[in-house]
Structure formats: C-alpha cells, structure tokens
C-alpha cells in the first residue's frame, strides 16, 4: 500500500522525569508560614474588637451608607459619561470656540484635586448665597445639599476624565469610516452618532470600567462633607462608640464586596465587546451601542443580533 491511510497514527507521548522545583516549594512554605502568623496575630488581637466588626457588619446605618455610595457612583458615572461625550465631541470639533471651551474645562477639572472640588461645591453658598436671577432665585443651601454637592462635584470631575477616554475611543475609529459616511451624504453629527460612537465603544468600555471602580472608592472622600455614604457612616459610629478601627474594617469589607462585583461585571462586559473583533463573527449591536445608535435597524433575517 502506497496510499496513506486517512487516520493518522499518533506516536506515544514522551515520558520524562520533570525538573525538580525545590525553590517553588520552599517559597510556598514560607508564604504560608508568614500568612498564618499574621492571620493568628490579627484574629487573636483584642484591640481589633472582632465582635464589634460582626455587630456592625450589617448595621442599618452601614447598609444605608453602602446604598448611598452605590447611588452616588452610578449617578455620577452616568452623568459623567454623558458630559464626557459632549466634551470629547467638542474637543474634536472644527469649531475653535467649542475646542477651547472643552480644553479649558479639562484644564481646570483635571488640574485641581477632586477633594478640593468636593469642598468647593459644598461651600458654594459662601460665595453665592442665592442662585438665580433677581426675584427668580433660591437659597443655595436648599439646592446644594451634601448629596447634591457630592453628585455635582463627582460628575463634573468625572466628565473631564471621561472626555479623554471617549476622545481616545473616537480617534481609534478608522478615518475611512467617517469618509464613507460623508460620501453617502451623512452630516457630521449623524456620522458621529450612527457610525463613529458605536464603533468607539469597544475602546471606551474597558477604561470606563476602571473609572467606575475608582469612582466607588473616590466617594469615600465625601466623608469630609458628611454625605452619609458608607465611609461617613462608618466613621460616625466609630467616633461615637470609640470603635474606630473595627468600623474601618467594616467599611473595607463593603468596599471590597462592591469593587469585586464591579470587576466581575467589567470583565463580562469587556468579553462581550471584544467578541467578533478577533474571531471574525461580530456579536449583534450591544446594549450600549444601541444606546448611542438611537434608532437601530431591526435585525434582518439570519442576522446575529
């Protein structure tokens, strides 16, 4: 028989003595020993007051604070993203006035610490006791509560950072896409909304996920204005009962829970937006793409959407 048989015969795999990894075992033993010693000293330390940690872990004030933290994170991120898109489009526009306004905004809000900005908005009443014009004005303090000041400060600050992320995403889209849209007679605004932004999402989503996690932790700065989020409430209880350290551990616990959940969501989202880019079978337009595309066409027969 000269013709090859269609089934290939697999050769027996190599059997060899593996390299000894003595260093690996020694280092693992060392790490375990150090961690065990540390864990023992923490677990048995009277000053940590573990019973207090357990007592306040699900305290209603702590849980309420955690909810406020999540609310502030979600709201300021959503508003910050919208503001960021507007600023990015302004930055890339042909209109020099819009470009300058956007650049000036970024210069101020990225150039001053967010902690200072938070205190600044909270104290707005010191400079402008009343907001509005003439008789149509309201008491500033009645509008800018701690929550309001917090939301304002975080949104305005986040807008500046999101603007740079969105701008990077827009610039990552091939120039040929814009040319093709223009050649079809689409105006600049429509080209941005229908063609460029949906494609920019793939580049925008991963750093935006990081921004959400950062934002969640940044809300702890709001303790300086007593915004009644997680850290404020934990500190309040700690100061009242002289249980500062255990309450810090309670705060850490909830921050870790929340950031872990966000990280999981982020990796899911990233996988979703990466689909189709490397394997040639794009997923249908995602929820975020739909958000920007507005009136999305219904998926045709056999469409993957």
């Amino acid at each position, binding site marked *: 028989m000269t013709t090859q048989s269609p089934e290939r015969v697999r050769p027996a795999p190599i059997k060899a003595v593996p390299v000894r990894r003595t260093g690996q075992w020694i280092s693992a033993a060392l790490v375990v020993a150090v961690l065990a010693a540390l864990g023992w000293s923490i677990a048995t330390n009277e000053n940590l007051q573990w019973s207090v940690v357990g007592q306040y872990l699900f305290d209603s004030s702590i849980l309420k604070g955690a909810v406020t933290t999540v609310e502030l994170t979600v709201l300021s991120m959503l508003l910050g993203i919208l503001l960021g898109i507007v600023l990015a489009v302004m930055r890339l526009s042909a209109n020099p006035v819009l470009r300058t306004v956007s650049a000036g905004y970024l210069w101020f809000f990225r150039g001053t610490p967010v902690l200072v900005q938070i205190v600044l908005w909270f104290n707005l009443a010191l400079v402008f006791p009343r907001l509005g014009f003439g008789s149509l004005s309201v008491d500033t303090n009645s509008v800018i509560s701690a929550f309001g000041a917090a939301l304002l400060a975080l949104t305005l600050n986040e807008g500046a950072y999101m603007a740079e992320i969105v701008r990077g995403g827009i610039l990552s889209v091939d120039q040929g896409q814009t040319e093709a849209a*223009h*050649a079809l007679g*689409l105006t600049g605004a429509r080209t941005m909304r229908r063609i460029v932004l949906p494609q920019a999402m793939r580049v925008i989503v991963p750093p935006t996920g990081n921004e959400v996690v950062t934002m969640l932790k940044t809300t702890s700065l709001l303790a300086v204005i007593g915004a009644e989020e997680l850290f404020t409430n934990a500190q309040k209880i700690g100061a009242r009962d002289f249980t500062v350290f255990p309450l810090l551990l309670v705060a850490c616990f909830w921050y870790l829970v929340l950031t872990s959940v966000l990280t999981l969501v982020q990796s899911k989202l990233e996988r979703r937006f990466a689909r189709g880019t490397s394997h*040639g079978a794009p997923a249908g337009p995602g929820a975020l793409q739909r958000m920007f595309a507005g009136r999305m*066409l219904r998926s*045709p*027969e056999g469409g*993957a959407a």
Partner: protein
Amino acid sequence: MTGTTMVKAENVHKSFGQVDVLKGIDLEVANGEVFCLLGPSGSGKSTFLRCINHLERIDAGRLSVDGKLIGYKEIAGKLHEMHEREVAAQRRDIGMVFQRFNLFPHMTALENVMEAPVQVRGESKAAARERGLALLDRVGLGDRAGNYPAQLSGGQQQRVAIARALAMQPKLMLFDEPTSALDPELVGEVLDVMKDLAREGMTMIVVTHEIGFAREVADTVVFMDGGVVVESGKPAEVIGNPQHARTKAFLSKVL
C-alpha cells in the same frame, strides 16, 4: 455617450502643504460615460477623485458636477463656501467606492445598504429594506444580507459597498482603486458588477490599475502623472497606441 456634461474640471489645483498634488487638471466627463483614470501612484488621480465629492477641497480652479459647483456657491460672481449641510446634500447624488471598502463593521450587509436611504433620504425602513435586498441581489449577495462585513470576503465586501453607494440612486459613481486591496482571484467578481453598471448607462469615474478593464469598458481613458493629465482619449488610442514616453513607460510596467 452623447448628452450633457456630468463633471467639468477647469484648471483644478490641490496641494498638501508644500506638495502640489494637482497642477491644473482640465477634464470633462459626459453623462453616461465610463471614465478611467490611470497613472502611477502619487500621480494625483485619487486626490482628483476625492475632490469631485469634496472629500478634499480644491485650492484653485473650478469643479462642477451636473452644472453645479462642488463645495462653493457663486453669488453675484463671488464664491461662497458651502455649509456642511449643503455639501452633504451634494454628496447624496455622488456615490463613492473606496479601495478599503469602508463598510460599517457594526452593521450587517443589509443595514449598511439601508443606512443612507433611511438616515439621509428619510425613506421608510420597509422600503429601504426591500430596495436594499434587491440591490444585494443585483450584486449577487442576496443570501448574505444578514452577514456582518467581517464574515464576508474582500470581494463580497466590495460588492456590498457598491450596493451601498447605489442605494442612494446616484447620478455619478466614483471608484477609488476598487480592486487594489483584493486577492487576485476576487478581482473578477467586483469588475463584473462594475461592467454591469457601465452597461446600464451609469456615469462612472474609475481610478484603477486594471488596464484590461479600462480597455474593455472605458469610453475615455486618461493617463495622469505628476499632477497633470498627460494623455487622454479612447482606450484604443491611449492604451493601444500611447503617444507620450511617460505613458509608454507606465504601460510597459503594468501590462
């Protein structure tokens, strides 16, 4: 080939910084004509094509399509720049096909074809879908309507791009090296679609390196080099019996 003038270029100049790309182009394309631009890379032929739908603005001269200046209005003998909306309105009637297809990757083939009729002309989705499917059928891709560009071969993508341009029912089609990015075995299917289009009387300006296509389909062939028109005429004259040394040198390399 009789009839009115579709494109008229008079002394068109264009430079990018210090580089003069077009140094006085005078050309006239008649209604229904198939017009092929040949020439070495850097000769300015693609730039000239892009000037016709104002993707590039010309620095000097006059350029008009169907009797209307492109990108400018003439009011009382004075030129006024057009507003973005007016430029967009002019482009509706001029289809363009790009070397790199430039299909919208986040839309299916059918959605690509429907996009401009729905968004620009305000056509109903049902009508646009029906016409879109018919157009995809016409370029031989009726069964790929639901596929995304990444799931199509280069030749198929370019045929979708042609259908997308035709969906706006243009009076003029511009082709910018439509087969240069294709594997050799896929060139034929795109050229076939273009030949059909020429046969149906579409006015076409084609920048190409496909000498065979130019010889077979073109009514007029123009050879450009260094930003000027070196030679123009019937394919039999320019390709079959070139008069200028530069044309001869170019053709000897590509034939």
